[in-house]
């Protein structure tokens, strides 16, 4: 038991990462908590490789999770919270980039490829339909025999 206590204190002492959302962070209001979770999934933990603050173990992520919840309790809308965080940390904090001129190519990429590919396909088929291969004389004769 003593060893265990030592090990437990070792974890605390080493400041090892804690898991994502902690029980003490969870809001009592279920609707507000659900909004907090949805928002957290869209916010990047800036010191991590590629994690949302909802997933991350980092202390910074925890601070941000608590911050988001405090703003929610204060009555901020989701947009207000996002704007607040962007003002503080820049666009980098948003995992879903804003749709603006600089990200137009990013957001339109799927459509551009689909449309361009679709046009190529349309041309491919219309050109083929325009020029069907005529039957040879022998084939015509055979066709006549069959019908």
């Amino acid at each position, binding site marked *: 038991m003593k*060893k*265990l206590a030592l*090990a*437990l204190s*070792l*974890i*605390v002492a*080493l400041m*090892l*990462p*804690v*898991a*994502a*959302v*902690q*029980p*003490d962070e*969870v809001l009592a209001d279920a609707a507000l908590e659900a909004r907090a979770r949805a928002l957290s*999934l*869209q916010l*990047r933990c800036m010191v991590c*490789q*590629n*994690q*949302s603050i909802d*997933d991350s173990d980092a202390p910074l992520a925890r601070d941000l999770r608590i911050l988001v919840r405090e703003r929610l309790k204060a009555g901020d809308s989701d947009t207000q919270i996002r704007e607040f965080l962007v003002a503080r940390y*820049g*666009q*980098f*904090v*948003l*995992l*879903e*980039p804003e749709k603006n001129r*600089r*990200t137009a*190519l*990013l*957001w339109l*990429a*799927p459509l551009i*490829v*689909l449309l361009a*590919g*679709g046009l190529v*396909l349309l041309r491919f*088929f219309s050109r*083929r339909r325009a020029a069907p*291969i005529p039957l040879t004389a022998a084939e015509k004769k055979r066709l006549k025999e069959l019908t």
Partner: protein
Amino acid sequence: MIAELSHAALALAFALAVAQAVFSLWGAWQNDARLMAVPPLTAFGVLVFTAASFAGLTYLYVTSDFSVANVYSNSHSAKPLLYKFTGVWGNHDGSMLLWALVLAAFSALIGAFAGNLPPRLRANVLGVQGLIAAIFILFILSTSNPFLRLEIAPAQGQGLNPVLQDIGLALHPPLLYLGYVGCSVAFSFAVAALLEGRIDAAWARWVRPWTLATWLFLTLGIAMGSYWAYYELGWGGYWFWDPVENASLMPWIAATALLHSALVMEKRDALKIWTVLLALLTFSLSLLGTFLVRSGVLTSVHTFASDPTRGVFILAILIFFVGGSLALFALRVSELKVGGIFAPVSREAALLLNNLFLSAICATVFVGTLYPLMLESVTGEKISVGAPFFNATVGPLALVLVALMPAGPLLAWKRADAAGVAQKLALAAAASLAIAIGVFATNGAPLYPMIALTIGIFAVAGALTEYATRIALFRAPFAESFSRARGLPRSSLGTFFAHLGVGLSLIGIAAEGGWSVEKIASVKPGESIRIADFDLRFHEWAERQGENYRDIAAIIELRRDGILIGKLAPAKRIFVMRGQQTSEAGIRTFGLSQLYLSIGDPVADRSVALRAYWKPLVLLIWLGGVVMALGAAISLSDRRLRIGVPKSAAKKKLAAVPAE
């Protein structure tokens, strides 16, 4: 001694690979039969020496020779034996050596099994393979040499990153590399075809088994990586749209497209140009993946700039192969003849549509992964492109693709009857809608997972419909259906399983996304929480000593209807030597669903921060991947039947070519 011998073996492998490239390409150019007889031998030689070199590195790891810098940085004498083996590729240098070994193995296999290839095609293919091998081995020798010694040998090594000390992650890289490197075969075939300026259905028949094998390994590799993340990272996520994951996903998507377009080419002699282009792009994307993962460019454009030797070398390789092959394609494309005619409603057209959607998905992942890098290097502005973006873009595209998938195999070649196919699928559609409405009525549902679930069920029902159609189930006497089932070509059975797997995975993804239950609570010893049908009682903390780690586990008793049905022990695993820890989830499987527990920090009052998840049908996500891979394996077993065919086709074609 071993380190120096292994180093020398690798240098020999390099020399042989250069010889292979030169002899074969020059021999094919000159049409010199003696020169063209050399490459299968050199390919075997490259394999022998690369394998010797790899075996040498493994020996150094197993014997914990810390005078070698690479072993010192990545191993420890107290590490379990299994991880001394797998630690060989748990670092940059060793994993590049594995890359080269897999490439050498593929080349040797081509040399051994391609006796029925036209000699010039074979020589060109092995020439390109030799070129790739030579350049990658040169990369290892000059920037990533794992055999360098330390001036003074330390007594103990620094140990392997604990995250990598797991069987799942130990097997993930080799599988993925088999897939990545397998893409080189289709690439070499495509370049060889462009060099010769000729391509036919027989070409597609040779390329398809290699692409199938590649796709099989990629599928398994990705599924295994995803399952590893799920049980190891501690919050039950299985796919994060991380650039490293995207790097493996892009070749997989391209290989999927290639499999389908090569099918059209093999059966109908059409879509040649597109198939060749896809073969080039698939390997280009796997090289891009290697570049992204190995250069450090992902962490930041700046880390890449601060230590550019490796990154610049791989970038040069990337530009050489991608640029070179695309330039060759542009030069020669007009010489490839367009063949095979088909109507807008036909199997061919359906496969084209499949390729259109896969291309759009692949392009989206590509742009999404690289956009932040481009924007930052152009404007200096930092943005993130994460999971919400990919879910919003790739998600709908993939859903449309899967919704259309069941129709594909039911359509006839050349010209098909759309109404007839719709009629055949009506039952499947009705069944999936009925099940979806049933789920909605009993469980309620968010919209997006609901749509995904319906489409997933439709895909499964559609695959079954297609199978039933092929064996004429209920339309013919059972005896006949049975004999039809036995006589069904392996390749159509493969299609059935692959498509079934896609549907199963989608059902798993939808169920996990829409109907998972999560509970986060701080629990004191003796207290219980309730999730789904289960009562979880926190019994006590326990400590377990492992070979090179210590687990601090929370013993959780699991009860259903008051009856004890088991204990789970989610833990924090502490690797004292490196001062790092990993989390070990406690997982209990019920059919295809799982109860998933992970713990947070122990708090001063001995309570545990418990995170409990009920994940319905979650196992289907990976099981679907396994079923897809099974489909590929079944289709591959058809290969013996296929190999006889190109032989005669090749001879005929060869005879028709005028002497130069």
